[in-house]
């Protein structure tokens, strides 16, 4: 690397002050993240409720978890939700980015508007949407006679997740959009000039030229987005609080509500499994991005 090591010694002595620079971060990090992670894993082998009497129960929490429909349903919901949202967010953000980099009026003003949702807290905007979904949408459904909409979709176990996808997308599009804009602006204009000369249509250009050239950005967006959406919590709290029934309980929500119900050890087993899965996803991500260093 670009270190300034003196050539005479193979291992130059590190100046003391560098330790002083590094140690606060290392120590805090260890106490704030590593130690809790270890404690959590430890307690996943007990029947602790977080305090009071407890004893070791071996792997029973893990065994119970794998046959627990509530846990399995939360994994299914969370991954399904993340997959749908990631597709929706990326399609919309990409199309918007194409529009926002084309020759249009009010370009910077429009960009500024589309980025606003990024600075709004998820739970607060979820409360706002909650009002719209429970009051305005049913009113609209009743006047137009659209049966599905005449009742709050938040109260419909089959549709509540759609509301969560909509609000999550509303909030997640700006970040994704900005990355796509950067990607689109990085494409040299000559490419399109050549395509124009060859007589390629606009749609052809979009799919044959633009999309392949921003493929790297798509990968980044999909992976970042997916990992974020797995942690869905705030917006769900504001919209459905996991309901109706248990239809929209994400993994983080299961962990927190399970704990509030007195299930510390069991939810630590759940958290441990969630952690393992996220690590696996991250490793896959590393593999893919490594192969995509051209971005």
């Amino acid at each position, binding site marked *: *690397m*670009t*270190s300034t090591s003196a050539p005479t010694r193979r*291992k130059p002595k*590190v100046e003391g*002050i*560098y330790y002083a*620079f*590094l140690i*606060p*971060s*290392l120590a*805090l*990090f260890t106490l*704030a993240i590593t*130690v*809790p992670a270890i404690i959590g894993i430890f*307690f996943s082998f007990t029947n602790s409720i977080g305090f009071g009497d407890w004893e070791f129960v071996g792997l029973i929490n893990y065994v119970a978890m794998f046959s627990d429909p509530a846990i399995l349903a939360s994994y299914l919901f969370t991954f399904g939700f993340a997959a749908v949202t990631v597709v929706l967010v990326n399609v919309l953000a990409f199309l918007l980015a194409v*529009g*926002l980099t*084309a*020759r249009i009026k009010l370009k910077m003003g429009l*960009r*500024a508007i*589309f*980025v*606003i949702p*990024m*600075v709004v807290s*998820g*739970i*607060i905007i979820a*409360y706002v949407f909650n*009002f*719209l979904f429970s*009051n*305005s949408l049913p009113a609209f459904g009743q006047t137009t006679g659209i049966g599905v909409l005449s009742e709050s979709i938040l109260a419909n176990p089959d549709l509540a997740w759609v509301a969560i996808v909509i609000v999550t997308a509303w909030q997640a599009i700006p970040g994704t959009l*900005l990355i796509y*804009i950067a990607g*689109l602006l*990085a494409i040299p204009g000559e490419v*399109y*000039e050549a*395509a124009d000369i060859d007589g390629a249509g606009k749609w052809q250009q*979009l799919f044959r030229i*633009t999309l392949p050239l921003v493929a790297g950005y798509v990968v*980044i967006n999909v992976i970042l987005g997916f990992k974020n959406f797995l*942690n869905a*919590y*705030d917006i769900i*709290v504001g919209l459905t609080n996991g309901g109706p029934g248990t239809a929209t309980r994400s*993994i*983080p929500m299961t*962990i*927190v509500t399970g704990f509030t119900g007195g299930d510390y050890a069991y*939810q630590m087993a759940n*958290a441990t499994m*969630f*952690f393992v899965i996220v690590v696996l996803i991250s490793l896959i991500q*590393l593999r893919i991005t490594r192969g995509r260093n051209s971005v």
Partner: protein
Amino acid sequence: MSVQPALAVENIEGTKTLEDGKARRTPTANRGNGGNGGTKPSLPLTIILLLCAVTVIVPLYVTVSMAFKTQAQAVDGNAFSLPAPFSVEGFVTAWNLTNFPAAFLVSALITAGTVAGTVILGALASYAISRNWNHRLFRWSFFYLLAAMFIPFPVVALPQIQLTGLAGLDNPLGVTILHIMFQLSFSILLFTAFLRSIPSELEESARIDGATTWQTFWRLIFPLLAPMSATVGIFAFLASWNDFMMPSLITSDPALQTLPVVQSIFQTQFSNNYNVSFASYLMAMAPAIIVYLFTQRWVMEGVTQGAVKG
């Protein structure tokens, strides 16, 4: 982790030039991808985008209009009607009920602490790491600190509740520390990449002039890091200001809760007084939106820079 120095520089330069919307380096980049290929701005496309922008504006419009209604008008549940008469009673009630100034102060302190802490701790650690890369401890520390990107908060949330409580940190300070720790890996990733791009000659000449490492860092390196610090700071700001889950679980005293958490605490007390609840939402949302409107160019650039690198 695979970020290579050269690559990093390219990205940073690339996004910097490109994000000003004029795309100086590639003058024709704007044309071609959609719309008409001519020199005139496309009106139909502008209209389509304006319509799309309505979806962003509608919830915000509803928030504002509901907030300024009287209670009598708000209970009818019509989201789109304009306030008539115009009333601030919702704000007065919400201000007092939720103790808005306290919640705002807590949110602001946590956010300020997180931004400052993330930038300073991240820059210090990154500097130490990048200048001692061939030393095992520093190299491993880099990977160790990056590991937090693999650990979602929910995974460690419960033990953290326990530990912060035992350490007397079940308060905004504890939240600040945890926010910094969860931002740290990302900021170190960005800082180290940037630091590797700084030519060593600059530093060497500073040292020849007799500057210590401490002085070199603060007088030379830290100012050079400014654009990256802005990016790191913006990310820290957004993550910290908007966070709900961590403060709601870590802070034990409800009087020391942040704005987003306060909204959920008072949700049942707002009941059907929609003007009060929306006034409260609006007050909680407005500071960040206002800050954003004044700094939008930086925010967009910063986020693009960070996200493309992350």
